[in-house]
């Protein structure tokens, strides 16, 4: 499933869509938090983070590690979390994935799901800790539905990333 093993030499000019589509999809994922919907408790999965992880797991060398900073900044602007929260957590997630790449060369899809689940839970709990530090006082128990929804939605997100991946190379 992993792309990114193509020869580096003699690649020629890349189409703009190859770079733009992945980043744009993550930004659109972050934009879901401004959709008109009034929520009583956190239930909507963090689509921006899910897409980021989905792309990174399908295409290993899609982004340098620092890409999480601008993408996380955009997410912070919209999500209502304190500024810097997603920037920090997403960068940490990508760094952990770099480590995973060193430890486990060969992975299958289910292992990727487990790794992503771990990172999603980490990011959601970290986000809660940061929100609580900035003045909130929400119990971690209320995050359980959101965590469950996020983990179950993740395979779908990976499929979307896969479809977009084929699209961006076919353009």
């Amino acid at each position, binding site marked *: 499933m992993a792309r990114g093993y193509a020869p580096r030499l003699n690649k020629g000019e890349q189409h703009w869509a190859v770079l733009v589509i992945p980043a744009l999809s993550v930004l659109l994922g972050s934009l879901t938090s401004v959709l008109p919907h009034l929520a*009583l408790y956190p239930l909507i999965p963090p689509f921006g983070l899910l897409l980021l992880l989905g792309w990174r797991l399908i295409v290993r060398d899609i982004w340098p590690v620092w890409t999480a900073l601008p993408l996380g900044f955009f997410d912070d602007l919209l*999500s209502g979390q*304190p500024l810097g*929260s997603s920037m920090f957590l997403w960068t940490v997630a990508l760094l952990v994935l770099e480590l995973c790449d060193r430890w486990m060369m060969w992975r299958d899809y289910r292992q990727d799901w487990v790794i992503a689940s771990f990172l999603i839970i980490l990011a959601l709990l970290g986000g809660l800790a940061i929100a609580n*530090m*900035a*003045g*909130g006082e*929400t119990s971690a128990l209320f995050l359980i539905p959101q965590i469950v929804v996020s983990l179950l939605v993740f395979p779908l997100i990976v499929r979307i990333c896969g479809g977009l991946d084929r699209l961006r190379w076919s353009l």
Partner: protein
Amino acid sequence: MAPPSPRRPGFSRRAQYSIFIAYVVAIAGAVGALLLVLSARFDPEGHSALQSTAIDLTLPITQTGHWVGDGVDTTTGGISAYFNAASQNTELKQKLAATRRQAAAADQLRLENARLKKLMGIQDKVIRPVASGSLAASSGSSSRRYAILTVGADRGVKNGQAVLGPDGLVGRIVATGRQGARVLLIIDGGNVTPVKRASDGVTALAIGRGDGMLVLRPITSNAAAFRRGDVFVTSGSGGLYRPGVPVARVTQPGRDGAIAIPAADPTRLDYAIVEPVFQAPPPLPPSTLPDQEEK
């Protein structure tokens, strides 16, 4: 053969350096972001400025979709109302009869109150709303409970002002963009609203739980226990909200504090008004008291 890692580019110095620099930038950025988070705790104003700009930019998306969400909401509500219609009907009839009796008594009280006020020469201060708008979206993925209001600084909305729905208190403004504002809802975990029981004025604090409910904690320990159905209104202490706005109704009494449902259901809100920051009337200046004694 194991695939060559894209992070180990062989002997190319240039490729090695670019990967190394990417790590350095990422780690430095993560540390910087952590400092940014910490500074948000001490300087929330500076941070909300950036986020307010984001509110303005995304407001068109929020507003256009608002009507869609609204339609779906009322449809599902309408369908579910058909179930248990018969039992609801009898229940409502009983309630209506009781309410009529209360309304008659209240009418009499209102009349008497107005007469007494005229007698005492008290003039009610009319609070004019700053602006009215609609609540468009809330942060669904964050654990904080914010909503976006469709009026902003160009209509006079400022931070700290109270937001009221038709049924009661919704929250207060924490960030203002030019055409939109972010509202911290009273159900946000950690948001504290000073309240009093409408029936006898026992004071309490209404604290958001983060799941759409409020916890009511009595301020005095010897206060009578809260009962199911008790209605709480803002007490006006602290000077943030004006007194008398409905806040919550107790659904589940507990030993140390009761769980209450907010009077204004944030998911069904269409329109909300923004009221100026309430300032309690200042105490009489001390100089007036000796004067009266001399006379």
